[in-house]
């Protein structure tokens, strides 16, 4: 008798709270994972960045010591500068992707094959892209090296040149990134209202004017996503640097994420605290962009309602 009454009570409690409880129950596994693998490590990184720690032995409290050292560290400045170059040049992927999308947005026989071919670089792994471009640039047998040698008489080994290495890597990174932006714009172009184009054409709009005033405003959601993925892609560039130059020659093509890895986790790196401090700086830079994006998204959502 007592049992049935508790059972009844619990069932009625469930019934009355079901509405707000159910979504949380579904969210719980995801939230636990997110807290464990994303939120907690962020705070842990902040904590470790105040210590001097080799990852194995005793931790020693340093306070702001790691950050003070960062400000005098030339390798850090080089990495930061390279990150800015990455950010600026990587944005080229957006207009070039748009151009390609418009070029491919036509009905010709076999257009799907051309589209897939242009999309191809995004499908292959970044590691493979990095290897292909290192061979392309390689001194003595690389295609580009031999081409330059044939034209000018003296080959240029791009990845051995401290002033060119970063640009060489960015060029490799742009190849798949352009394909990605292109596919975003291609889907966007499918949704462009034909009646508006018709109307604009009747009003005499053509070429660039048509693009700027009629097409682009309708592509704004695609542009937004393209910019977001490109900015984030530029800031977290790591694999290409690691594959193509290992940050070299003498550290001139390092970016923040690679420098963090070098300091904390690589063969000669035993400085977890210093690596964590670099990670914190990179996190804060990313937060500027991410909060900007989130703010814009929330504003748009509110505006729609």
């Amino acid at each position, binding site marked *: 008798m007592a049992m049935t009454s508790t059972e009844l009570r619990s069932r009625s409690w469930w019934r009355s709270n079901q509405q707000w409880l159910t979504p949380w129950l579904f969210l719980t596994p995801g939230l636990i994972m997110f807290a464990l693998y994303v939120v907690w490590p962020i705070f842990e990184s902040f904590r470790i960045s105040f210590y001097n720690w*080799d*990852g194995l032995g005793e931790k020693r409290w340093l306070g702001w010591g790691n950050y003070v050292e960062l400000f005098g560290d030339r390798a850090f400045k080089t990495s930061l500068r390279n990150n800015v170059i990455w950010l600026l040049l990587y944005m080229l992927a957006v207009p070039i992707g748009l151009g390609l999308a418009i070029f491919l947005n036509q009905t010709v026989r076999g257009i799907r094959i051309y589209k897939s071919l242009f999309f191809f670089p995004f499908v292959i792994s970044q590691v493979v892209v990095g290897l292909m471009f290192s061979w392309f640039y390689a*001194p003595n047998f690389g295609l580009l090296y031999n081409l330059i040698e044939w034209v000018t008489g003296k080959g240029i080994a791009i990845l*051995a040149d401290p002033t060119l290495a970063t640009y060489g890597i960015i060029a490799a990174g742009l190849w798949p990134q352009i394909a990605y932006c292109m596919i975003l714009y291609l889907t966007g172009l499918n949704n462009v209202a034909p009646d508006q184009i018709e109307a604009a054409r009747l009003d005499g709009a053509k070429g660039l004017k048509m693009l700027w005033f009629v097409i682009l405003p309708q592509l704004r959601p695609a542009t937004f996503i393209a910019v977001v993925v490109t900015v984030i892609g530029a800031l977290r560039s790591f694999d290409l640097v690691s594959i193509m130059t290992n940050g070299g*020659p003498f550290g001139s093509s390092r970016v923040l994420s690679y420098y963090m890895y070098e300091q904390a986790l690589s063969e*000669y790196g*035993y400085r977890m605290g210093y690596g964590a401090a670099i990670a914190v700086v990179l996190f804060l830079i990313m937060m500027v962009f991410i909060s900007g994006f989130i703010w814009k998204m929330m504003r748009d959502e509110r505006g729609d309602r």
Partner: protein
Amino acid sequence: MMQLTKSAPLALAIALLATTSAMAQQRTLNYYADYDPIPLAAMEALIADFEAENPDIDVVLQNFDHEGYKTAIRNFLTTDAPDVANWYAGNRMAPFVNSGQFMDVSDVWADNGLADSLGSALASMTIDGKQWGVPYTYYQWGIYYNKDVYAQVGAEVPTTYDEFVANCALFKAAGIDCLTTGTSALWPGAGIFDYMNLRTNGYDFHMALTNGEVEWTSQGVRDTFAQWARLVEPGYITANHAAIDWQDAAALMVQGKAANYVMGNFAVGVLKEGGMTDDTLGFMPFPTINPDVPRAEEAPTDTMHIPSGATNVEDAKTFLAFVARADVQTKLNAAIGQLPMNAGSSVGDDPFIQAGFELLSTTPGGIAQFFDRDAPAEMAKIGMEGFQEFMVIPGNLDDILARLEQARQRIYQ
């Protein structure tokens, strides 16, 4: 036919089951290592011999990629430690010893009289008066050269550095790189620096420098770089070395596009695979720079250790004692083309191993490990970047040395 292909996997599965049940009687010894193909085959033969002598032990070798191993080791030592792991002697093992990741194996040394048979490695295996691993091989560094190219330009094999530099002018005129290297992974450049430094200032200076006791801006270091500049400034060193691996540089020498290569003896395998023979490939000690400095050489030692997290310590110690034995080291090193550490071992017939043995056993000055094994990891990294930069932009020398000195003051405090 169809029937056969269907039953084949089944038969294989049964066979596998049978072997695993037989192995259930044995104790497993997990061994993590980072061998290239040639030494891997030699080590598998060694393991087979060991298992024949100790039928109740099953050695499971997990082989890693050479460069990847160096970063993986810290993870597996703390999380999922094997019973035996490969590493290196000298300062390179200090972080693991000091943090208690390697086990004290002084008893293996004492019980097997290794202080006598492995006496030449005792110092580099000892920290705080205890031994932390067992060496199984070492190899000489020096200059490997292409005899055909020497004949082509009419150069004599040099014994002094002045002669070496004079030869470079001949090679340059013939469009051949006098000295090749590939510093994409940084460490090959450290080999050149070490020899310039050992020949200019000697062994004691090298040890003092890597121990952080000498300023990088001192006159001794500047003298070393001044000698090095005699090769860098006229462009005698392969131009794009910063973008190529050491194997790519070996290819340049095989193709006759480069004359000399400062390398370790492990390069011989690669050079011979590329088509060089004992008739075209030569070896010479690095030539004399300062005749008043006693000749010192570099011979890095490769070692095996027992991690503190090992589960089968007993058998791991049996394995280390086996690896330290004279006959075992003779066989292993003959197969991999390197030098056995054990004084009772005999050296293989290969002319390059013989030359290396001759070189090292007559060294009056002392035997160094290598820049990145004698110096702490952080200093090694910053230093090797500086060496690479110097070979690309020699004009930055003052800047490089100031940076290294700043790093020294921070790292060794």
